[in-house]
């Protein structure tokens, strides 16, 4: 009774959301047994892209920071993971009979650089996959969010970061493999046995579910309320005693860590990482997934990444000029469905509403207060 009076039944379990999530999870759990091998790996990849889109949704959809640099965080995680897999190639597979990677031999390196060497060990590599992008994001975040810079200028900074880092990685060929990136890596093993594609699929599914659940949990709390307020008017909320920069840096760093881990899982699947994922074009791709899926909906960007990937795959069967179709689609969505695909769902199915606690209209508390 008391809860009803006060409006929010917050203690109530979000039943509808849990049921829908479980159904979704079940579908994704059954899919690999129905799909062919191509779709299995394709879907694994798209789920990682979807996870990346969710991580951007946290900073853009909720907090209002539009970033073209999320590909950068993804790729940094990817490189950490790629060094691990590269350094763990079996000795027989290393064609130069030395314990440094082939691309370093080609570039005249004789000793494994000290900052790459520790990545041979799994725990360090795993930590680096998350920590390197997170640390990089933290430094950038600290630098730009504790200043007057806002809005489109932050976006331009992320554009410059993606562009500069792409150039940098390409030019440091001895350490990064240049344009090729790191190729010819070993596959991921678990206690000596190679993880099969379906195993990788379930690891990725688990990670995607984890990211979605964590993001949902964060955004439905007061923390999420603060993020949305920052989005709407960041100046005002400072006068309520919130350290806006701290919040921004936190979500930015967390989002980068999520993106980094997605990149880390991407390498065993894709078997290479390269600066192509650092570039502005890929960063824009992530932005498009979020825009098309619907900002601030979490699941929307995830689904959009998967659907757009599939769409592109089938459009390529129709015409070689498939990216023209993708461009037109993007224009149509922006002009006619500005709030993204999720806004097409009827209100009561909207996941944004499902994720909110049930609401009951209040009665005048003067009657109820005891």
């Amino acid at each position, binding site marked *: 009774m008391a809860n009803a009076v006060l409006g929010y039944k917050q203690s109530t379990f979000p039943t509808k959301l849990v049921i829908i999530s479980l159904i979704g999870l079940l579908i994704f759990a059954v899919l690999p047994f129905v799909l062919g091998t191509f779709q299995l790996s394709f879907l694994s990849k798209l789920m990682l892209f979807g996870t990346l889109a969710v991580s951007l949704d946290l900073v853009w959809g909720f907090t209002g920071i539009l970033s073209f640099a999320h590909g950068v965080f993804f790729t940094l995680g990817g490189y950490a993971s790629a060094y691990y897999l590269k350094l763990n190639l079996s000795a027989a597979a290393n064609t130069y009979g030395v314990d440094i990677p082939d691309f370093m031999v080609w570039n005249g390196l004789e000793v494994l650089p000290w900052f790459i060497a520790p990545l041979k060990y799994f725990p360090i590599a795993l930590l680096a996959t998350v920590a390197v992008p997170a640390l990089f994001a933290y430094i950038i975040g600290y630098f730009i969010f504790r200043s007057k*810079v806002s809005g489109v200028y932050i976006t331009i900074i992320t554009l*410059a970061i993606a*562009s500069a880092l792409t*150039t940098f990685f390409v030019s440091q060929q001895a350490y990064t493999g240049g344009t090729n990136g790191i190729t010819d890596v070993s596959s991921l093993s678990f206690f000596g046995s190679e993880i099969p594609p379906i195993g990788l699929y379930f690891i990725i599914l688990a990670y995607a579910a984890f990211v979605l659940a964590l993001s949902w949990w964060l955004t439905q709390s007061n923390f999420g309320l603060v993020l949305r307020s920052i989005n709407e008017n960041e100046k005002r909320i400072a006068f309520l005693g919130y350290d806006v920069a701290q919040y921004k840096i936190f979500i930015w760093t967390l989002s980068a860590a999520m993106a980094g881990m997605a990149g880390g899982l991407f390498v065993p699947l894709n078997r290479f990482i390269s600066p192509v994922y650092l570039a502005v074009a890929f960063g824009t791709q992530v932005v498009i997934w979020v825009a098309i899926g619907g900002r601030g909906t979490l699941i929307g960007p995830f689904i959009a990444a998967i659907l757009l990937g599939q769409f592109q795959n089938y459009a390529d069967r129709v015409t070689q000029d498939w990216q023209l179709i993708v461009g037109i*689609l993007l*224009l149509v969505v922006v002009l006619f469905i500005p709030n993204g695909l999720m806004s097409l769902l009827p209100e009561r199915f909207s996941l944004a509403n499902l994720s909110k606690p049930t609401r009951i209209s209040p009665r005048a508390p003067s009657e109820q207060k005891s």
Partner: protein
Amino acid sequence: MLDFSLTSMLSSLFLLAEEAAPAAEGISWIALLNQALNGIGIVGILLLTGLGLAITFGVMRIINLAHGEFIMLGAYVTFVMQDFFKMDLLMTIPFAFIGTALIGAIVELTIIRRLYGRPLETLLATWGLSIVLQGVVKLIFTAELKYVRAPSYLSGNLSFLTNEAGTSPIAISYYRLFIIAVALALLALTMFLFYGTSWGRQIRAVTQNREMAKCLGVNTKLIDMGTFAYGCGLAGVAGAVISALKTVAPPMGQDYLVDAWMVVVTGGVDKLIGILAGSFLIGESNAIIAFMLNDPLARVIVLAAVIVLIRYRPEGLFTVQKRA
């Protein structure tokens, strides 16, 4: 009113570069002077490619990611005019302007107009537009590189300090000088249009207070369309002029996008003259750092410097500090 953080950073880089340079040879100051002079060539291209964006973003606040594609369209107009009518490159410039301005007007009418006040949607729409424009141009002209001829009277070099052997340690090509001349002329023309004509006053009225301008009888829709088309037309001229020096292909515009943004942001968007400062700083520092180190590192360093600059002066170098 130079930004000191940037200049001091550059000077520290010089020290760094001096250390990095091979000790035996040292730095040839004549070669450096030559490089600095040729850096003007880079400045010209930056100025030219950034000018259109200074209008569409600086004045109208439209985040136009299809800016590079308008440059590309201008280059293709020049190609068509040369290929079909055997026109001299100089003659094609008005056509490049009109052609891209027309397309710009159509784009404003069908897309941009619906998105005023929604910068993020504009950004996405113009990205979509850039994909579409590239795709359409590729359909029409195929993906092959196209050949645009520079006028023969613009070949050759302006040289200084020519020695007896006939070689000149300091020289800059006439075509580069021509690019600068075009860029400066367009800048002057644009400044005249904006600050010296009633059209310019109307544009400034609209950008400062749209509602008030409407009340005063300004046709804001026409002004919006005209201004956007003009910005696109400038990009088209840039495409026409650089087509003879670089390559003409559907993705060519992508190369200029990030640079144009950096130029506009560095100079500051409030004053058109800021873009001259932005191009000069970025172009010259790029040229000089590249000469001491190499091209990719120069790019990384200059981009990093621009990031630092935005951090401390988001309003650019040439903007008066305003009340928050």
